[in-house]
Structures are given as C-alpha cells and as structure tokens.
C-alpha cells in the first residue's frame, strides 16, 4: 500500500509541473490536422473528376458535338505560373527557416501575385469562352471543375495574404515557429497538384 502511494504523489507533482508549462507548450498537432483535411478535400475533387471521367466514358461523343475547341494558350501559361509559384513559395519558407523574415515576405508576396495572375488568366478564359455554363454537359463540367479549383486558388491567395499580414508583427513567425507558413505552403502545393490533374483530364485528353 505504501509504495504506490508514494509513486503516485510523485506522479502528481510531475503532472502539475507539466500542466503549468503545458498550457503554452501543448504538443502541436495542427499539421497532422491539415493533412487529414487535405485528404478530405482531395476526395471532393476525386468525386468531381470521377463524375467527369464517367461522362467521358459513357457519352456517345465527348465532348458532345458542336462544343467549341478549348483555347490552350492561356491555360498553358496559367499552368506554368502555378507550377513556378510552388517553387517560389518554397523559397519563402527556406528564407524563414534561416530567420530571414523579409525574404519570407518577398517570396510569399511574389507567390500571391502569381496566384492573382492565375485567377486573372482564368477570368480572361471565362469571358472569352465561346460557350456558357449551360451550353452542354461538357461545358457545365468545364466551369464546375475549373471554378471549384479557382475557389481553392482564391482561398490559397487569401491564406498567403494573411501570412503576410501576420508577418508584420515582429516575432510572429520565426525559424522554429511557423505553422501558418507551412500550412499555407502545403495547401498551395495541394492546389497546384490538383490543377495538374485537372489540366490533363479537362484540356489535354479531349
């Protein structure tokens, strides 16, 4: 009876000390949470892509006859912008890991501009398209898929802007504490990869 009691009081003490420091130093599981969320988000795209591929397989003609050719120039430029932006963004994180906040701001700022350029390109494509949302099944799919992806790009740009906004506070991000920076970057890479799949199945294989 005696020894467990002793042990336990020791444990109690340790626990209290931990609890005091623990309130600020909780182990950080947010990155794990981000990954789980991205799995969920990628399933949304998987659902949309699967629907698109089923249509492509079962419809007698795909795209349906009379669908105007998709213009490829703007989306190719957009693809180049988006892929490059992933590398640009990574340089920002590298800079931060060396403690260089202004480097982070420079590269992330550039990424945000590239993201906006992508959105502008997509807007240009929408306005100059020779078809509308309801023209036929293919064009509906085109707008639904690129639009849903565009929403993700817009969200990514907002995330980057909020990182930039927060980075004005000295010490908000440091070489050791930078969850927001990493989360924004992983999200951006995710959006980038989704675009590559989308570009192949919507623009290239038709």
């Amino acid at each position, binding site marked *: 009876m005696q*020894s467990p*009691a002793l042990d336990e009081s020791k*444990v109690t003490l340790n626990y209290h000390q931990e609890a005091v420091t623990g309130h600020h130093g909780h182990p950080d599981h947010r990155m794990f*949470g981000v990954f*789980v969320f991205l*799995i969920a988000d*990628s399933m949304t795209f998987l*659902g949309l892509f*699967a629907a698109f591929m089923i249509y492509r397989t079962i419809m007698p003609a795909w795209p349906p006859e009379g669908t105007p050719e998709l213009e490829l120039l703007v989306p190719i430029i957009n693809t180049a912008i988006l892929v490059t932006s992933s590398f640009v963004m990574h340089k920002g994180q590298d800079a931060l890991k060396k403690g260089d906040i202004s480097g982070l701001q420079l590269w992330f700022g550039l990424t945000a501009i590239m993201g906006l350029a992508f959105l502008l390109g997509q807007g240009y494509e929408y306005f100059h398209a020779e078809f509308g949302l309801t023209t036929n099944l293919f064009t509906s799919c085109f707008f639904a898929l690129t639009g849903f992806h565009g929403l993700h790009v817009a969200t990514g740009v907002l995330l980057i802007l909020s990182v930039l906004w927060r980075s004005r506070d000295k010490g908000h991000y440091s070489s050791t504490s930078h969850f927001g920076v990493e989360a924004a970057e992983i999200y951006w890479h995710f959006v980038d990869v989704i675009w590559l799949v989308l570009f192949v199945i919507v623009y290239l294989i038709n």
Partner: protein
Amino acid sequence: MTTTTEAQITENGHSSQHQERKWQDYFTFSTDHKVIGIQYLVTAFFFYLVGGALAEAMRIELATPDPDFVQPEFYNQLMTMHGSIMLFLWIIPAGAAFANYLIPLMIGAEDMAFPRLNAVAFWIIPPGGIFFLSSFFIGTAQAGWTSYPPLSLVSGKWGEEIWILSVLLLGTSSIFGAINFVTTIFKMRMPDMDIHSMPLFCWSMLATSALIILGTPVLAAALILLSFDLIAGTAFFNPAGGGDPIVYQHMFWFYSHPAVYIMILPFFGVISEVLPVHSRKPIFGYRAIAYSSLAISFLGLIVWAHHMFTSGTPGWLRMFFMATTMIIAVPTGIKIFSWCATLWGGKLNLNSALLFGVGFLSSFLIGGLSGVMLASAPFDIHVHDTYFIVAHFHYVLFGGAVFGLFAAVYHWFPKMSGRMVNETLGRIHFALTFIGFNLTFLPMHPLGLQGMNRRIALYDPQFQSLNMLVTIGSFILAVSTFPFLINIIWSVFKGEKAPRNPWRALTLEWQTASPPIIENFEEEPVLWAGPYEYGIDIESVDGEESVEEMLAEVGAES
C-alpha cells in the same frame, strides 16, 4: 492513500487552478469536449423527438390504405424529413456526442486535439437543423433522403435547395469532428497507452472517422452539382439536358453506404465497452474486434452499387458488388460472435445498459442477416423499394444504432451527470422499446415480401391488418420515450449521487470524478490494467495489489 492524495491536491491549491463548471457553459461556445459532447447529445435527442413525431404522423396515415390523414404530397415531405433528420441530425451527431465525450477521457487526454474546431463543428448543427426544418414553411423536399434526380429536380425547387444546403452544412460539421477524432486518437494518447491497449470504442471511432473523411466530400461534390442542376439550369444529372442520373447515384452511394457504417460503428464500439463491464469478463478477441472495425470501414467503401442493382447496373458490376457486400458479413460476424463469447459464462448484471446491449445484439443480428439476403442481386431485384428494405434498415439503424445509443446513455450517465439513473424506469423503457420496435418493424418483412411499396401514402387494402399492427407498434415506441425522458430529467436533479466508478470498470474515464472536472484528471491517470481485464484476480500489479483490489479502491472514492 486516496485521502492523502486528495489532501495534497487541495493543499497545492490545485483545484482552484481549474475553473468551476457553470451551467451557462452548456449554452455557449464552450471548447470543453465534455460540454460539447453533452451539447451534441441533447441536440441530437431533440431532433430524435422531431423525427419521431414525423414518423408517427406517417404511421397514422398508413393505418388505412387511403390517404385520409395527410395529403400524399405532405406524406412525401414527412417521409423525406423523417429520414434526413434521423440520419443527419440524430444518429450521426449522437455518435459524435459519445466520441467527443469519451475519446479524451478514455485515452487520458485533457481535451481534443482542436477544441475550437470541435466547438465550431457542434455549433454548425443547431442552425443547420433549424434551417432544415424551416423548409416546412416553403414546401419541403419530397424526393426522399436520397434526393435522386430527376425526381428531386421537379418536386419543389427551394425546398430541395434548402435540403441540399443543410446536408452540406451538417456534412462539414461531420468532417470537422472526424479530423478531431483521428488526430486526438493518434496523437494524444497518454504515453503508456499503445494503440493495442486503447479501448475498442476508440478503434471504432477511428474506422468511423476514416469513412467520414473519405466519403462525405464525395457527397458534397454530388450535392454541389445537383444544386447547379436545380438553380443554374445545368444538366449534370438531368437526362432531359443530356446528363446522367446514374452518376448522381454512384456519387451519392459512395458516401451514403459508408454512412451506414458511420452510423453503426460508433455503437459497435459502445457495445464492446458495455458488454465486458456488465458481464465482468474480458472482451473476447480484442484484436479481432479492433481489426474487423477497420475491415468494415475499408469494405464499406467498395460496396456502394448494391443500392443500384435495379439502376441498369451491368451484370459483371453486380457480381462484384454482390461479392464485396457479402464479404462484409465476415468482419461483422466476427464481432457478433466475439460479443456473444464475451457474454458467455459471464456474471451478468442485467441492468438497463446491458439490457439495451443485449437488445442491440439480437436486433442488429436480424438486420445484419436480412442485409446478407439483400446483398444477393436476384433477391434484391425482387424486393427493391418494398417494405422489406424499410424493415432491414430499421433493424440496423434502430435495432442497432439506437439500442446501442441507449445502452451508452445508461452506461455513461453516472459519469456525465454524477447521478445514478432509476433502474426500474430504465427497464420499463427497455421493455417498451423492445416490444414496440419489434411490433413496428417485424411485420414489415412479410409486407415487403408480399410487394407493398415503400415511400407511398397509399397501398393495397389487402395489407391493412399488418399495417395496423405496425402503427400500434409505433405508438408503443412513442410511449417508450416517456419513461426515458422522465428518468433522465428526474435523475439529473434528484438521482442518487454516483461514485466515480459505479460499474467497477477499467477504462480511464472511470478514474476521474463523476462528472469529470474541467481538463479531466486531477492527477495523471495511471494505466494499471488493460481496458478489459475483468475477473482476472490472480494477476497483480507490482506484485502487491490485485486488479480487483485496486478496482474496489477506485470504486470507493466518490
């Protein structure tokens, strides 16, 4: 020993470190997982009463073959809302309720991994539910909880749109919850607890969360496209505009078949907790039950088209889905046998919790067996959209999930409220529920085999006598809710004070006060036995105290 530790705690001023729980916490944006768990449970129960009232209205209508109590259109709305509310606002949130309440306690953590996200997940539900119900004012959706196009595109635009938006909201809440459960289970276990000494409820929530994370987004994608069809005039699923309604069915069932497991797996977990405690025996086949949860979760993702045997699904695809569906009976059977073997030769304490546990076993078994029958394509084609289907899924979802849910309420009520329930009322509740349930749903099997169509307000007069029986059963079911409500309300205020471990259980939630303090444990919980090592008196800890003695000690504290 106890008194010394407690004295130390007070001397250290430890208890003042933690805030006291206020009753207002239950009505505000609290990030405490225990508060959130109870918020989920009470909200879900409210919607159970709403969904139940809708069901009673349907049964009154179906007491006679003619549509004399409500208009057929209104019947369609009742049917749609009954199904949707029971699934999205009762069983799924009720599973999340127990997951929220129990996971951190069971693994010895202070709270969930993301407490604020957790609170957000809950607070989406009440507005989502009210929004859902508000559609009654403008003409609710009539297309059933499946919302198949083209029917859903032609039966009331705005009611359908509200239905879609509410389900999207509730699905988002469900995903947020699942992210929390997975992260908490993987990352927040106390250091001594490896994944194989984790209570089985946590295993089952792991399997459930995986399904939520993989399935719900696909439903969201389908509903977004359906919404476009409804509002923007596209034709993804509308054959009139060149679309294909079958694609919707695939996307819908890719979520909605796993949804069945999302609804039943948490209660598989509950049963794995309730049975060993109240029969004083170790769980039979811990790893078999744990892994079969994961197997069900995986197989659940590749069986969806068995809902579509009559949708022009080609033969080879039918064969595939028929085979995978039947394979699910294997891990489910492993669980049923393990639970029976747990009960076998145990020192059964047939209190309300165990009665509902055993009720679960027997009713779910019937639902599971009729499920195997339905997996067979030739049989399924015969009974598709008849009352046989209605009987089957009510045996799974009421006989399974709801019985498991009540078992959980009776089992953990002392922990949640710090009071014991009234056993007599609990047993009356069980008897009425069990009789009412079987009287309601058993006759639906022959009705379906004889060809009575589901989802329709009128039927052939030859079915009237059995339908009358079903309606009487549903009244008994309605009445059975009253002893439960009275019991819970009375016990919360006047019940006998509960000790911290009234059932002498070994899982960690019983090592803290009833109800647990904020941040759960006064002192770091000690893992001195596996979760189910009951009746093993010879085994001792540190060679000094047997598990039974330590249990007696914990039980003595209050």
